[in-house]
């Protein structure tokens, strides 16, 4: 390793530039971005000419957006040395509570008030499960894997239990706006280029996701709490001995992840205007895998918001490409698995190489 730094220190422009390029290329985000570009070109060359083109891209963004709400806090939780399997259960519980509340209370109050109430109930469910996860892991020292597996099943069971085998359809029409409202639509009429670039038709979830990404980045890299997340995941005891409140970091992380999962559920309920208890499947592993592909370490202490964003893009691009290329959809999981395997193998390889230097 010292050899690398001696090289950096050496004068001589070419060498310095060379090492700067090498350092840039050694960043996971940069590597991943290159992979995404190459992947896009390959898919386009393979016949799907419109892949991530001007028509497809806005649709793609709105498809990725609900997962994006969850992948950011999940990446932060992973960086803090924890992870949460319960998000799918929480999202589905939130979906069902939304449907249940609507079918019980529709007409008894003002529609706007009802929508606020519904959203509040969904998010509160997330808050409660997140707090249970966080307190179980920090206060009762329960294992996060088994704890969140248990709360996943409980939340999922509560969802199917409340739904009682039916999905509710008595939604207020304006509830759809949570997922379908296009905030830039009017702006697009004034500025036609926004319309041409199809930015004006981006629906709300893309903006929720943008806000979550920005907040995640800001917290992680620009605040003390963000550095405390890294410290906690890097060495929990060491961080605690230096005065970092590691239990608070973990508790806040679990709550944020669960609330985000609940928000994801609300967005789905709004988009579908229906509330089946199995709306979301595989959310937990999708976002954990995306964060890991993006460079988050399962052992904690490493990762970034940008990496998680790109990792999730990759997951959805594979899905999208499978469909657009007309490949048998049944093979999608094989490709996802192969990508995950490659990412983890690459990670292990770079770590091995760094250790031997």
């Amino acid at each position, binding site marked *: 390793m010292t050899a690398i730094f001696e090289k950096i220190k050496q004068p001589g422009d070419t060498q310095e530039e060379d090492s700067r390029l090498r350092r840039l290329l050694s960043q996971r985000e940069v590597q991943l971005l290159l992979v995404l570009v190459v992947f896009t070109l390959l898919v386009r060359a393979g016949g799907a000419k419109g892949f991530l083109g001007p028509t497809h891209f806005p649709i793609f963004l709105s498809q990725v957006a609900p997962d994006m709400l969850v992948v950011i806090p999940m990446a932060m939780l992973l960086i803090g040395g924890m992870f949460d399997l319960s998000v799918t259960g929480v999202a589905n519980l939130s979906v069902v509570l939304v449907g249940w509340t609507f079918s019980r209370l529709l007409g008894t109050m003002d529609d706007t008030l009802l929508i606020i109430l519904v959203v509040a109930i969904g998010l509160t469910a997330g808050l409660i499960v997140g707090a249970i996860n966080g307190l179980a892991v920090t206060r009762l020292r329960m294992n996060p894997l088994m704890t969140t597996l248990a709360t996943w099943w409980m939340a999922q069971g509560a969802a199917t239990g409340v739904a009682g085998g039916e999905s509710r359809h008595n939604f207020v029409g304006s509830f759809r706006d949570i997922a379908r409202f296009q905030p830039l639509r009017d702006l697009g009429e004034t500025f036609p280029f926004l319309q041409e670039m199809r930015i004006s038709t981006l629906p709300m979830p893309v903006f929720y996701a943008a806000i979550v990404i920005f907040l995640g980045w800001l917290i992680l890299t620009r605040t003390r709490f963000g550095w405390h997340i890294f*410290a906690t995941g890097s*060495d929990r005891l060491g961080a605690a*001995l230096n005065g970092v409140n590691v239990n608070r970091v973990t508790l806040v992380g679990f709550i944020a992840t669960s609330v985000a999962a609940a928000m994801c559920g609300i967005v789905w309920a709004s988009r579908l205007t229906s509330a089946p208890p199995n709306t979301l499947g595989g959310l937990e592993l999708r976002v954990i895998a995306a964060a890991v592909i993006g460079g988050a370490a399962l052992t904690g202490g490493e990762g970034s918001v940008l990496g998680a964003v790109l990792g999730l893009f990759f997951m959805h691009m594979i899905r999208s490409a499978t469909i657009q290329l007309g490949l048998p959809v049944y093979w999608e999981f094989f490709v996802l698995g192969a990508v995950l395997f490659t990412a983890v193998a690459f990670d292990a390889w770079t770590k091995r190489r760094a250790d031997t230097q």
Partner: protein
Amino acid sequence: MAVTQAQLKRSGVDHSTAEPLLIARNISKAFGHVQALSDAYIDVYAGEIVALVGDNGAGKSTLIKVLSGAHRQDAGEIVIRGQSATINNPNDSFDLGIATVYQDLALLPSRDVVANLFVGRELTNRGILDRRKMTEEANRVVRQLRTNLPSVRTPVRFLSGGQRQAVAIARVVRFGAEILLLDEPTAALGVKESHEMLTLIENLKERNKGIIVVSHNLAHVFRICDRITVLRHGETVGTLVKEETDSTEVVRLITGADLL
């Protein structure tokens, strides 16, 4: 206590007039059925190095952790600069001017030197981390200690044992702590690095810090310390002035061989 406070022999520091930076007396601490400390005593003056020695399980680390706020003592009194003090957590200890370098260093392997120097005490400007100031400050401290680190942006896991130790000590120096607790500072180091570390500790003494060093290595103890406090079975059995003792006597006190 085999040696009462009145019997404590005095060393190079003028102990008759000066006030100790730190006194910990009658400290006891139990973990379940295990009595880790029963009657521990230690004191340290500004500008001296006190070695804390004892066999495995004698309670050295527990005593250090009581002083650093990682454990709360069951009974006993801690006096800092003449004032009775309560240490409930690491921040209390820090606020009293006590800084601890742990045996496992409590470093964050995936984080760079800057983040390690400032962990728990990050500098902010209107709520936002002041990364430039922290980097400048880190470079200053590293230069001050004349340590040879490749770059303050290097993750600590790429550093050698001696470099990591230097980072851990730089962290302590950077916050201007007056009382330093060093837990086995040379245990993981090679001969050359140990030598550098001991020199670094002597530098700190010249800066008038009060330093408590836990060590198994009596050669290192005798090279740098002024006094030696011996713990056995959680109890302070004596404090010896280096010039008036030798390693045979220290070993006898550590093992309790004189009692057999």
